[in-house]
């Protein structure tokens, strides 16, 4: 599904049907997915359609820009470094290109959404929550539903750390796609309560294509954020 589609655009698989009908007065985009039909009319002619995995924090509405991945507890001794693989939900963005500028047309997902609270109601943040298993190697995933996160855990603190969740800021996410949807990140544990998560931006093996950053396509006046500080614990 992911990639560039020139002019005549249509994509069909057992779960999703996407197409643009150019016979109507204005080009009509139509998405049929999960028993739901969405139609939109394009007021301008486009040069190409791009379908990319996007930061999974947009559906069903923009409530947060943080992703929380919960996983079985890992005990990490002091001064150790361990690479693990987690899974995360995939959201699919449909972009239309006009004069080399990307514009978002639609976002959808085949995965149900769940939200959570990280921290206290008064000082914490709402996160898009996802439960993942822990894998020592790249897990097999349906690339339209789940992506693979290569997470390097680094315990820089002087104590053993219990880790069972990681929170990421989507403004720093750098997604890649190819055989699978993937991203790479590090989580540095500084104390039993504080850690920082950072996306490395390195393309994982088998995922040479860089996805379009949603905040860039939306022309938000923000740049990518380097790190997110988890200050409410990791377990």
């Amino acid at each position, binding site marked *: 599904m992911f990639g560039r589609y020139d002019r005549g655009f249509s994509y069909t698989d057992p779960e999703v049907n996407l197409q643009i009908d150019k016979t109507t007065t204005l080009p009509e985009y139509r998405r049929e997915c999960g028993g739901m039909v969405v139609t939109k009319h394009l007021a301008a002619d486009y040069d190409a359609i791009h379908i990319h995995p996007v930061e999974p924090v947009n559906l*069903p*509405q923009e*409530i*947060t820009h943080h992703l929380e991945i*919960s996983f079985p507890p890992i005990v990490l001794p002091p001064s150790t470094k361990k690479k693990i693989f987690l899974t995360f939900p995939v959201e699919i963005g449909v972009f239309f290109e006009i004069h080399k500028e990307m514009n978002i047309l639609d976002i959808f997902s085949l995965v*149900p*959404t*769940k*939200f*959570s*609270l*990280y921290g206290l*109601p*008064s000082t*914490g*943040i*709402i996160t898009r*929550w996802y439960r993942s298993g822990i894998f020592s190697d790249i897990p097999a995933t349906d690339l339209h539903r789940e992506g693979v996160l290569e997470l390097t855990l680094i315990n820089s603190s002087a104590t053993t750390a219990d880790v069972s969740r990681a929170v990421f800021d989507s403004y720093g996410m750098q997604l890649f796609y190819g055989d699978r949807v993937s991203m790479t990140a590090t989580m540095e544990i500084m104390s039993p309560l504080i850690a920082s998560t950072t996306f490395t931006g390195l393309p994982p093996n088998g995922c040479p294509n860089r996805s379009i950053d949603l905040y860039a396509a939306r022309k*938000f*006046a923000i740049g990518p954020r380097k790190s997110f500080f988890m200050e409410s614990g990791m377990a």
Partner: protein
Amino acid sequence: MIPLAGVLPNSTEVVTALNDETNIVGNASPKEISLFIVSLVVAYVLGLAIAHYLKLKLSHRLKPDQLTLLTRVIRVILILIAFGATVPGLLDLSFTILTLIFVGIIAIIGISSQKVISNMVGGLALLYEHPFASGDFISTGDVSGTVVSTRLFSVLVRTTSGVSVQIPNDQIYSSDVSNYHANVARRYEYVVGIRYKDDVKKAIEIIYGLLEDYTFVLKNPSPNVFVSDIDADSVRVMFRIWFPSVWADTKDDISFQTEILPRVKAALEAAGIEMPYAHREILFADPDLRFPELRAGQQ
């Protein structure tokens, strides 16, 4: 003409100036006065245009109160620039005019000071303490609604029925104010009654499963479902859930009620668990006391 800066005028000069009717507008020429007025009007219009432009460009990036503050600051700066650029020419105004203006201002403040000053102080306190922002849903006194704007003297609130209510700042500052958007998450609780004969454990499992599957019910803190009471008609099952404040349509929590409660009812009924009507079963200690009129008739 009496100089405004430098040595203070003596009484003779003041009397002379006040008697000199031709000096009523001082040395400020009509051209300078016109320039002053035109500059203020231009600054005001320019401020409106810039505010409109910023609203178009930044409304999706900034919160409404941040945008309002930005546009107000820009407008005040423009007015100050216009004032500063043209007012030196007007400083030649006569002592008579300045005295009249000064007395007028003092009179206005004197007449309306109590309420105005207390509202202004309340407004400053609200700006400092910032108990709510534009877009927050608040309730204070008899008013519940979304804050449209916080001004120097009052807060404008749009109620759920679409009525705009202007609340004086001193009133809002001295009352209890509940802000439903102050925290990122809010808890809601609801109680359903089921029959005595229904399986309570099964009902709890059904409700819990349904809440777990619902997108906006937060995973953490997780929902609580438990028997809160056993009353005369039913076993009361309470569920407490947390959800994101920004999602909640806090207008009477209608989102929660329309989204979740019908699902709970349907799921319980599908499992054969019913919510009973209130009923009473009357037992007589002496069976002979039953239907005395009927027995009397038979005799």
